[in-house]
């Protein structure tokens, strides 16, 4: 309870700091567009790395072994991939059209109908993804902090909602960067400590080689098609996550992109150490009979308890940082979608910053309600949330932005198709063939729809239209 109380006090301080510096929509939704590569890279990685990495990842290693790593193996590639495929184009459009959010960019390029669909997709996906973080907070509370899951979920989400509602992404970016630094250091320390407790990396691997060799093959216990589908989903999916794309809006100039992949990749690699370190060590400790867990998600808490109270506290802080930094972006994006993009797509004046603050609180409350009621494991919830955005937004942000012929109708149809296919297939995930990931299947079908409708439509020059003066002035916060 002391940790949660301190957390709320810190959140109040950040909220106060952010509220004093947030005077316009540009400050609230795009952190004033004054950040450099280091700040955006570390904060962006913190937003990207959720509690899924700290709790779900090691748990998944316990059952899937090296096969679970295919979710994170694309990490060295994704920083450059994001900048090459999407970042450069987004930065150019942000400079040219003064848009503040990914959905606003969709509106600028593809018109109002696409902006409306995009806003609905982002709002729904952000609430669902926020629920994953609330679920993780519940696990955190029960496992690390000794409080009820609901109490922990409410406290963590309340703290995040507080500073995001008050200070928008001015406060969110600062908090994310601090949290990212904490997460990177703690992840490395915990991974090293866990491996040391298992007798060192060589001893841990030798134990697994002797007792559970199936975990150590290149695909672990995961069928290779499924592992490769995970690789593709989490590699290409980085191009479609709105909280990833949002970071390009914070940069002060496109020149900052040059160093961004290095910062993103370095920070991400440090944070992912916990997945491999705690996963290998935990599996070895269980094989040795020194540890036992009832569910995969209990592995990280169990390893931390074995290490001692200091590790429990550090892990609790890291998981809190992870889930709060990710939640901050989702809350802000959902608020923007509900109060700016949806009204703008209907031809109305976008809502004020005050309206966005109210929407932030509402989205936070909805995420807590959804998250604490879910029975699915954090790993599966995380994959599902990522897949939804991949299915709906990947074709639009890659093919759509790069191909001049793409029309607004095609973009709207593609987003609708991707989201619908992903949701439909998620309901039957257990019956799908191993290589068929709902998110990838949705994105594939949506890509085909995007191309077919664009080719069948009239010229895009009269379809997407330029950003209107109204858009630009609202984007500037005037």
């Amino acid at each position, binding site marked *: 309870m002391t940790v949660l109380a301190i957390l709320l006090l810190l959140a109040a301080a950040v909220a106060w700091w952010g509220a004093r510096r947030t005077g316009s929509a540009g400050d609230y939704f795009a952190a004033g567009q004054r950040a450099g590569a280091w700040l955006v890279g570390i904060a962006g990685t913190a937003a990207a790395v959720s509690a899924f990495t700290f709790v779900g990842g090691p748990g998944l290693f316990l059952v899937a072994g090296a096969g679970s790593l295919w979710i994170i193996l694309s990490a060295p590639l994704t920083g450059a991939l994001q900048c090459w495929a999407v970042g450069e184009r987004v930065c150019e459009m942000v400079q040219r059209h003064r848009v503040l959010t990914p959905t606003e960019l969709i509106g600028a390029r593809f018109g109002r109908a696409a902006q409306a669909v995009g806003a609905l997709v982002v709002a729904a996906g952000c609430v669902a993804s926020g629920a994953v973080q609330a679920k993780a907070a519940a696990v955190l509370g029960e496992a690390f902090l000794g409080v009820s899951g609901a109490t922990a979920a409410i406290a963590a989400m309340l703290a995040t909602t507080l500073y995001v509602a008050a200070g928008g992404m001015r406060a969110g970016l600062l908090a994310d960067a601090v949290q990212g630094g904490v997460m990177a250091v703690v992840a490395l320390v915990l991974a090293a400590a866990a491996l040391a407790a298992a007798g060192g990396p060589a001893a841990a691997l030798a134990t697994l080689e002797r007792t559970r060799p199936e975990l150590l093959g290149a695909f672990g216990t995961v069928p290779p098609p499924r592992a490769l589908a995970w690789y593709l989903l989490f590699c290409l999916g980085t191009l479609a996550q709105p909280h990833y794309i949002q970071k390009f809006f914070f940069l002060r100039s496109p020149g900052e992109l040059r160093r961004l*992949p290095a910062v993103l990749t370095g920070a991400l690699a440090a944070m992912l150490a916990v997945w491999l370190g705690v996963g290998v060590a935990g599996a070895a400790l269980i094989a040795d009979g020194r540890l036992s867990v009832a569910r995969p998600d209990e592995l990280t808490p169990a390893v931390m308890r074995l290490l001692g109270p200091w590790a429990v506290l550090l892990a609790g802080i890291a998981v809190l940082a992870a889930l709060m930094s990710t939640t901050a972006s989702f809350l802000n994006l959902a608020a923007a979608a509900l109060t700016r993009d949806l009204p703008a797509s209907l031809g109305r004046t976008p809502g004020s910053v005050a309206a966005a603050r109210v929407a932030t609180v509402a989205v936070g409350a909805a995420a807590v309600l959804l998250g604490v009621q879910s029975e699915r494991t954090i790993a599966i919830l995380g994959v599902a949330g990522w897949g939804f955005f991949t299915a709906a937004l990947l074709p639009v942000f890659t093919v759509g932005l790069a191909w001049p012929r793409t029309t607004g109708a095609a973009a709207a149809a593609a987003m609708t198709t991707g989201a619908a296919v992903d949701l439909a297939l998620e309901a039957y995930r257990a019956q799908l063939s191993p290589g068929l*990931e709902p998110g990838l299947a949705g994105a594939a079908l949506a890509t085909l729809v995007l191309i077919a409708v664009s080719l069948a439509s009239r010229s895009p020059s009269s379809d997407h*239209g330029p950003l209107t003066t109204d858009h630009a002035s609202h984007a500037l916060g005037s």
Partner: protein
Amino acid sequence: VDTATGRASALIPAASAVIAAGYLLTALVLPALLPVLAAVAPVAACALVLARRRPLRLVAALVALFAWLCTALAGSLLAAQGGTGGLAWLAAVLFLLPLAIVPWLYSATFLSNHEPRTTNHLPP
């Protein structure tokens, strides 16, 4: 519309459609071909940048990426059986090796960012 944009107009939808249909086909019918798609699709996504700028060293960087990914994925398939070798291959070749190289490749090719770009399709 300049020549580069014209080429992109034809190549982007064609390549995207092949990859999208290819994924559905391999996932449902020919899962043995998924490694090919796993090597092609990420590099094809990186190659979207070629619609904006096309210096030779950027093309060379993407070719190098593709060669590395093919090697890494082929090695993974060979190391699929249980044993520390599989995990070591993943950690060394697919994760640690490109950790510094890929961001460096981006930075090195970013220098040519000021070369003439293709026209943007958005009105000013």
